[in-house]
């Protein structure tokens, strides 16, 4: 078996596939925490694409962007998990189908 030499598109395909996996998780899973992890997966897919672009376009701006994304993701996780914990205290559940007080 001979695989083609790795180029930008390979990285992009991996990134796209990872993004779709994350999307699938967000749509299909019903546990808030797992949905959150799937979101992280999507962010990571974007990171991979950005790093690959930055490497192949000879431009470090993409990597700076990734640095920012990682930082924002960390902040987001801190707040988001605190929200989940607060929700769990009120509802005793981390299941999205139990959190439907906005629904008629």
């Amino acid at each position, binding site marked *: 078996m001979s695989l083609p030499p790795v180029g930008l598109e390979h990285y992009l395909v991996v990134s796209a596939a990872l*993004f779709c996996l994350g999307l699938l998780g967000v749509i299909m899973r019903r546990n808030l925490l797992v949905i959150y992890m799937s979101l992280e997966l999507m962010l*990571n897919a974007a990171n991979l694409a950005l790093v690959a672009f930055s490497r192949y376009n*000879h431009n470090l701006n993409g990597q700076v962007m990734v640095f920012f994304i990682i930082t924002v993701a960390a902040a987001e996780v801190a707040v988001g998990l605190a*929200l*989940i*914990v607060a929700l769990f205290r009120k509802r005793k559940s981390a299941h999205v189908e139990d959190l439907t007080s906005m629904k008629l």
Partner: protein
Amino acid sequence: MQDALFYLFAALTLLCGLMVVVNPLSRNPVTSAMFLVLAIVSMAGLFVLLHAFFLAAVQILVYAGAVMVLFLFVVMLLDLKEEARRKIKVFGIATGLVSVGAFAAVMVASIVGTHPGKGLIPQGEGTTPVLGKILFTQYLLPFEILSVLLLVAMVGAILLSKKDLK
């Protein structure tokens, strides 16, 4: 050898990503979290292959070392009992699979069809000094705003997790 490593890390990343989302072994969120850690670490490997050394280290340090530990903490502290298996809605899953599949097909087809990287030679090292220079000159304002954002997030998280929030 680099190509082989790429295929190895890519396969590992995708496999672990899959295990995060649809895990046939268990429905325990801890398992999902552990597979996400693996996916993140193997993605750091991909970053190294792209010569983004600083980001690879930060990826492990921040994501695997801090964010995922936080996830684990919350999962463990909430102590989600093995949820009674809810009825799987076939319709929901089917629509989800179809829409995501269509999205994936469009993306992959457009990538493969256009050959975006054609003729580009990989160059540029994401070493710490270079990145640091850019961060503190060109991106100084976003960097500072980011630090404020982190502070805000910290205060917000503390406030949210207080027990008697009035």
